[in-house]
């Protein structure tokens, strides 16, 4: 299989970036996109050129690390897939493919396809947890949680922190990411107590980091690899007004 890549190259955070073209031959349609980049890098290194910096770890769609935009599709042209779960069989032989980092003011580019998403950790640090210390927990079955509630909490908690929701949003809003965590915790009896301060502080931090406002376009839900629903944004808003 043959593909022509247009890859975003940017030497450092401050440098000016641009697309560079690479023609690749001998690809296999079962390769994942990061495996294709491995293939490209091996070639570049042998030619004495600087390989493309990209981050990828678990390669099974759960660590949230590898996300890039492929032909403008955040994470993947496939539905509910991460970049590492995107295989070359998604493209046609001879296609030209653009690869670029997620774009958002709160996700500065570090080099080539690598971005800094620590803003998401800082949002979590403002209350995205239940304040229980080790040793304080009561017997597990003393907290009853209905099957449906547990399943709904899981749906929200499934977020992998990849930032695709931010990257696809025209406002670069982190509402889906933040909403999912707020919703996950406020849904559970053990997380209710801290709901008020949690939502106020996390929303404030979202603004502080330079994420935009949510205008409810629903684009985030469409690209979320875990299929997290925009209903969690509604929950966040409701929790916010309640507080």
């Amino acid at each position, binding site marked *: 299989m043959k593909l022509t890549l247009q890859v975003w190259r940017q030497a450092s955070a401050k440098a000016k970036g641009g697309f560079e073209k690479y023609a690749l031959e001998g690809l296999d349609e079962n390769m994942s996109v990061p495996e294709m980049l491995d*293939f490209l890098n091996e070639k570049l290194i042998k030619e004495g050129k600087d390989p493309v910096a990209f981050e990828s770890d678990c390669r*099974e769609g759960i660590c949230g690390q590898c996300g890039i935009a492929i032909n403008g599709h955040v994470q993947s042209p496939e539905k509910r897939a991460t970049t590492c779960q995107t295989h070359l069989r998604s493209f046609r032989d001879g296609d030209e493919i653009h690869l670029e980092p997620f774009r958002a003011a709160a996700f500065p580019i570090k080099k080539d396809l690598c971005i800094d998403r620590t803003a998401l950790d800082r949002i979590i640090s403002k209350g995205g947890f*239940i304040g229980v210390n080790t040793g304080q927990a009561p017997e597990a079955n003393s907290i009853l949680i209905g099957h449906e509630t547990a399943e709904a909490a899981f749906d929200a908690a499934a977020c992998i922190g990849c930032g695709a929701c931010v990257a696809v949003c025209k406002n670069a809003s982190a509402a889906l990411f933040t909403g999912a965590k707020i919703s996950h915790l406020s849904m559970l009896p053990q997380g209710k107590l801290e709901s008020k301060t949690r939502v106020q502080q996390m929303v404030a931090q979202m603004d502080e980091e330079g994420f935009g406002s949510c205008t409810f376009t629903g684009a985030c839900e469409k690209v979320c690899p875990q299929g997290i629903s925009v209903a969690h944004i509604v929950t966040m808003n409701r929790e916010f007004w309640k507080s």
Partner: protein
Amino acid sequence: MIATKIPNGPIQEKWTQYKATSKLINPANRRKYKVIVVGTGLAGSSCAASLSELGFQVDVFTFHESPRRAHSVAAQGGINAAKDYKNDGDSIWRMFYDTVKGGDFRSREANVYRMAECSLALIDQAVAQGVPFAREYSGYLSNRSFGGVQVSRTFYARGQTGQQLLQGAYQALIRQSAVGNVSLHTRYEMMDLVVVENKAKGIVARNLDTGEISIQEADAVVLATGGYGKIYYLSTLAMNCNASAIWRAHKRGAHFAAPSWTQFHPTSLPQMGDYQSKLTLMSESLRNDGRIWVPKKEHDPRAPKDIPEEERDYYLERKYPSYGNLAPRDISSRAAKEQIDSNHGVGPMKNAVYLDFKDAIARDGKAAIEKRYGNLFDMYKKITGMNAYEQPMLISPAAHFSMGGLWVDYELMSNVQGLFVLGEANFADHGANRLGANSLLQACVDGYFISTHTIMNYLAGETPNVKIDQAIVSNLKKETENRLAKLLAIKGNKTAEEFHKELGILLYTKCGLIREKPILLEAKSQILALQKSFYKDLLVPEGQQINFELEKAARVEDYLELALLIVEDALQREESCGAHFRKEYQTTEGEAKRNDEEYQYVSVWESIEKNVFKLHKEQLEFEYIKVSERSYK
């Protein structure tokens, strides 16, 4: 010379006794002590958060961009606990017994008992953190069965249990970084351990974004840096999993235990081509409903649906009628390998066996199966493009978990004082084979419940905040700088990736699921040759700032040394046990044949100089469990 520090008294009371008599530090004085934690998976995050809650200062280091990306995130199936919520006869004792037997009687009784004992509180802790475990309609916690046991003691959150537990630990860690005493250093790699007078006093860390190398000082160091199965190149591990932190500690004096005990997971997806960078695991929980089979006929070219029932060999059900498809991992993996090697393999590369849900779907309906395993089936489809509701899955054994690791005593402390090793990075609880859903458990109890007490006990005897001699600091810094400069200066023609791949194939074929002396000897000389070539032919692109190739090269350099020790370890153990199967030592039925008289010990290796190791032995004593032939028939 091997002091395990196992407390006296009956096994049921050892841990209680330990906690009751261990030394404490006044809450006001705890903030004077600093602990470095390397790694932010379940073990590292939970330990760091818990220490900070107690009032200690904690510096956390991870090479990840965020602590949440650590590979604990990928564990699917579940976590064991002896809650006996099913009323099916489970107890701490039974879990202890299952785990010791599962490990083929090569683990330390006292440690295993403690893990089973702490499992109860761990589930409570995780639920309190908001981990959304599966629930019955009545609101009670649900359980399922895993391999190697006959009770249902596995708690789970769909197929993403590791992710959910890690979220809990990550959130506890992040909470402490905001309100407590944790200072978080992301994108830092530990390059070396600082040892002063046989005490761990800090690490040499490299900022992976800037390339800057610094000495980080502390009163104790915790390594929670995971396993090294990635040494086999194709494995179920994440791309960046590596052995470097524990290997560098080993080279500074920490003993390495049972390096050759690597678990091959039976339900991984098979390799599909040469370009492949990793293998994806499918949760063992699938074996609750899937039936494993191969065609009876060799080289059978037919599609699975065209092979009639009587021409299928459900070999696990045939060989192990009482455990069937839920036989332990080492046995299931080896059985699959035997089928593949004897020309019964299926799939495009004939390197797989079938895992078939046809009967389960006919019995319970597609909806029920979808509910149980929907996300796993989706994942299977994403990766392979195949629909497992309509045709059996293709599965194959793949390198997965390191039972071996740095040697630790009962306090999870290495022979280097003040160096604690937690989770998969240590050798402790799993013997020669780990049971499914015990790794999340071990990582959690090590971090939340055990290390917190043992670290405090150690620190109580130490003067806090002793500054390291500046001459030592600058020397250590220089050593790491020189080491990296040397790798960059080779300028050969082969990438680190190529060396890693070559090493992986070599180890998989010669020191993998099945081992034998002449082949191991061959492997040894080939690894030495590969190491030689590494220092002559390595090619690393220039640059200190964000240079993933340089990171990789340093890790592969360490892998090449560890590989030698793995082979050395496999050679010295002239018996079969658990995941270590020596072809020369098998029963007439082809099962692992232990030699308890001579090999009832854990190998404990000391680093003498590069590529030279000295063997010590920790004799295992079984006071409570009768050592027997491990049978799952």
